[in-house]
């Protein structure tokens, strides 16, 4: 259970909160059904939102069912049933996780990388299956990672260029839609949310990367907390502008909550932590 793209629960409507939980459980179940028990541990908040955005944009209402699971063996929980968006999201989760593990192995020394090697071994089968299901996304991830490596090696200045690689990768998810207008709108939403995720990830890793002398664009450019917040807000506002263009549906406000309140509170949390440590 991790991720930066989370709603601010206190401001959600009850039905939205229930849907969010159902989407999270649905993703976990889909991962288990399609890619095995190990893959279920890959479930995260970022991709839960992805499935919600996909559902919201495609206009197909989500169906619910009640199911038991390991985490809740007694009480049956309400989950989103099998759907195209859930399966797509599950495949994307597995693929991205596998590449991330691989990336970690390359970043670390042999011994430090051992746990990642183990993880990779565990996920190889799931990855192969997911790759078969979503070939183009696997290609997009591969390309964006090699682009990112080039930037890392050159130690090129500028957070925008580095964030652009991950943002473009997220933007490629817009290929999910066949409709041209939906594709354009979702491209904008995903690009900017991807940019936010990348920058937030770097923001949260500043101390660790500084210690281990790993690549971190924020460390390299020496941006202040305020500058980071501003640039994240710009992207959030751009994503909100794009999201406003889709037709009103039961999920619009849930996504708006994440963009206007959820993510800003994650940013704020880190800012406060930094202030305390100064």
């Amino acid at each position: 259970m991790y991720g930066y793209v989370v709603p601010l629960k206190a401001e959600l409507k009850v039905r939205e909160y229930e849907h969010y939980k159902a989407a999270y459980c649905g993703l976990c179940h889909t991962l288990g059904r399609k890619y095995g028990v190990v893959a279920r541990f890959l479930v995260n908040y970022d991709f839960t939102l992805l499935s919600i955005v996909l559902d919201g944009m495609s206009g197909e209402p989500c169906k619910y069912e009640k199911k038991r699971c390991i985490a809740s063996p007694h009480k049956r929980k309400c989950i989103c049933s099998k759907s195209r968006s859930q399966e797509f999201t599950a495949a994307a989760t597995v693929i991205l996780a596998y590449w991330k593990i691989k990336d970690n192995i390359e970043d670390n020394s042999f011994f430090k990388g051992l746990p990642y090697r183990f993880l990779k071994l565990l996920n190889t089968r799931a990855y192969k299956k997911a790759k078969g299901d979503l070939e183009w996304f696997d290609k997009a991830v591969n390309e964006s990672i090699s682009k990112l490596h080039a930037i890392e090696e050159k130690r090129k200045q500028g957070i925008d260029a580095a964030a652009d690689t991950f943002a473009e990768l997220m933007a490629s998810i817009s290929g999910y839609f066949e409709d041209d207008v939906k594709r354009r709108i979702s491209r904008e939403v995903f690009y900017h949310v991807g940019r936010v995720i990348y920058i937030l990830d770097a923001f949260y890793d500043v101390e660790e990367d500084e210690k281990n002398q790993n690549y971190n664009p924020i460390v390299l450019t020496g941006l202040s907390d305020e500058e980071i917040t501003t640039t994240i807000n710009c992207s959030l506002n751009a994503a909100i502008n794009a999201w406003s263009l889709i037709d009103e549906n039961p999920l619009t406000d849930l996504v708006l909550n994440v963009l206007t309140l959820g993510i800003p509170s994650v940013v704020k949390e880190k800012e406060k932590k930094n202030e305390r440590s100064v």
Partner: protein
Amino acid sequence: MNDPYSVLGVSQSASDDEIKSAYRALAKKYHPDNYVNNPLADLAQEKMKEINEAYDTITKMRAGGGANSGGYYNTSHNSSNPTYQQIRNAIAGNNLALAEQLLRQCPNHDAEWNFLMGSLFVRRGWFNEAMKYMSTACSMDPANAEYRSAYQQLMQMGQNPYQRQPAGMSPCDCCTMLMCADCLCDCI
């Protein structure tokens, strides 16, 4: 055309004031200022047109014709330098690669060059770079209204999106509701 009332998200029995405020809220949401240098500007413009037409139709229907809307329109700026004009056109036409190539070839980096660089990066979503170029443009030519408004626009984008949260019940509404309910209790 769609039902003008559903376009504005109001019922047919809504009062003129309700319609006006619904129209204003939507116009604010899709205002061209929110989509400056945005690849989705055309879609926003369409939405804007739709709500303007809907509002027009309703006011005309209700007033028996002759009403005019407070429709918004875009102002466009022009450049005296032909290369800059070409770059502006390229950015407006979403041909960012060409715009960047032309900009990189420019020998002198004056205020307008910085402004155009900024616009290019805004459109791309590279806000950190955009911020640098826009502020340079403004400090080089502080009197220029176009640069200043673009910079302000960008600064506004950098504000916390908190105020744009979904419209629901504000704490104030909640209190008013409770107070009204309280009054009613007294009646009964």
